[in-house]
């Protein structure tokens, strides 16, 4: 049973709405993207480990989210650490939170120089994610944008080695970094291609380490921009830069060089300034504070949502989104309040 009271003024389906938004064409309203991961596990009253153990569960979970919220997107996202399992790492599961990467398996930067990328095809982990994409395509292709979410080539080493070790490598062995990033870009391409072939519409690249919170502008220009240019050449699908809550405003003006079609600024980034700096070159998905929203009474939710839409909506190329995944403690009623409130202000006419 749907928790959403609005949508009666909708004149487009979700796919056409997002396509029009990212291409700067007229839409009926701004798309609404509350970023949700394992909420269905809690609704089904099963552990996150069990929920993520099969494609069937995740497809069923995504369908449940559509039934509850009729979201403007559909996503094959499991958890970011899933890719590290192909490098021998164990993901950690929690009752009340998203799975996280376990102890790093790569001890030295030379690992990337001396080894071939792991082949994803045929592995149980990868197959399960592919089956998920296929299951979602079967139900939603042509109706909703199907997002395929994966780790960024620049961020993957920080999960595999540890973030300190990755940054020390950037500092101490700058000559080796391009080779490392070729390895991780090859891996990212391999992961993405299967999902594109399975029918995913958009590749969402999670790159918390590639943000201004983590690196200075010159490192972004030297290493991160070329990665996205390379990925854009290799992949026949648009890419969205997902910052996972990292600040992005200092890079807003140079982001078009990446060729990505959109970005998720952090809740800390000033949306008005971001809009100006983006100058309509890409779509902004932003930037509701996911960590605080669970505590907001309705009136405060309305104030934040209204003001965010007022800043983001003019000129289009804006999607109302949470800056990152909504924490597990936030109830489905609170998420519904967010969407219902947004619908009051989201329409253009």
């Amino acid at each position, binding site marked *: 049973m749907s928790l959403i009271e609005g949508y009666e003024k909708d004149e487009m389906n979700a796919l056409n709405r997002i396509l029009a938004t990212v291409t700067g064409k007229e839409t009926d309203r701004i798309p609404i993207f509350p970023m949700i991961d394992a909420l269905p596990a809690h609704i089904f009253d099963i552990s996150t480990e069990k929920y993520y153990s099969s494609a069937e569960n995740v497809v069923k979970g995504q369908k449940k989210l559509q039934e509850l919220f009729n979201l403007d997107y559909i996503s094959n996202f499991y958890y970011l650490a899933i890719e590290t399992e192909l490098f021998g790492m164990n993901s950690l599961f929690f009752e009340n939170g998203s799975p996280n990467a376990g102890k790093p398996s790569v001890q030295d930067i030379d690992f990337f120089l001396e080894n071939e990328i792991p082949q994803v095809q045929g592995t149980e982990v990868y197959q399960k994610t592919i089956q998920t994409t296929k299951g979602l395509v079967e139900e939603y292709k042509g109706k909703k944008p199907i997002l395929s979410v994966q780790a960024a080539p620049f961020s993957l080493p920080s999960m595999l080695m540890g*973030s300190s070790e990755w940054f020390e490598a950037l500092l101490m062995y700058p000559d080796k970094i391009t080779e490392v990033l070729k390895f991780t870009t090859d891996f990212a391409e391999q992961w993405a291609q299967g999902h594109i072939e399975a029918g995913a519409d958009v590749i969402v690249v999670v790159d918390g380490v590639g943000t201004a919170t*983590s690196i200075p502008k010159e490192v972004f220009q030297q290493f991160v921009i070329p990665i996205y240019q390379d990925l854009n050449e290799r992949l026949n699908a648009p890419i969205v830069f997902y910052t996972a809550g990292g600040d992005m405003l200092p890079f807003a003006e140079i982001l078009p060089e990446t060729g990505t079609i959109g970005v998720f600024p952090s809740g800390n980034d000033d949306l008005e300034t971001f809009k100006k700096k983006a100058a309509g070159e890409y779509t902004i998905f932003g930037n509701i504070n996911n960590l605080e929203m669970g505590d907001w009474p309705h009136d405060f939710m309305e*104030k934040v949502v209204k003001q965010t839409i007022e800043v983001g909506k003019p000129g289009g190329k804006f999607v109302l989104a949470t800056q990152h995944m909504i924490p597990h403690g936030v109830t489905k009623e609170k998420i519904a309040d967010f969407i219902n409130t947004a619908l009051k202000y989201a329409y253009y006419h």
Partner: protein
Amino acid sequence: MMKIQEFKDTFYSIALKRKYNEALSFVEEALESDIPPQKLITEGIAETLKQFQSFTDEGYEAVSAFQLLAIGKIAEDSIELIKPHLEKGTNAEKKDVIVLGTIESDFHALGKNILKLFLEMNDFQVIDLGLDVPPKEFIKAIQENNANYVFISTMMLHNILGIKRVGDLLKQKNLKEKVKFFVGGAPFNYNYGLVEKVGADESAENVTELMNKLIGSKKEKPKENEKPSRFKKILRFFRRK
């Protein structure tokens, strides 16, 4: 012959550009000069660190985690080069003891490691418990080392339950009055109310804010109405015209 001012200026400039190998070669060159090795640390490297710490006052646009880690690592390894040249007994007495670590199930080392570098540069004695530390281990380390502070960080919201467990244990073991409890990481930066919820005394968004609180806490208590800077940024959003 190289003078201390020249060392200071050049070291700062190299560190700013994150030229690791160049910095270490330059320190080796300076060790051949007449500048006393102790002075290279206290008036050269320490001053550089202070300048970098002040960068964080300018806001998040001015500094990144990588920049902080880089300067910290350059300073740490430079000091390691100088140490064998120091005369015995010239090391400054370490100040307070700080127990540091990430909470159980958290393997995000970056913030902790940056903090450790800066704390050590400021003469605190740091007991680094590393990553994925169970709540009881923090208490054990506090008791064994007679620590004055415990610093715990996490990047994951659900891990704050483990941090709250540390807060509860500090109360149970009657350590609350003796040990100041700092927490840090993204969940606290974006939701300052969590600091109180886990039973912590303080949180800081960056190194400067932390150092001010640490050193300032001995002199005066923070004003009651004082809001943390991240909170100020959020408030600013709503006050815009």
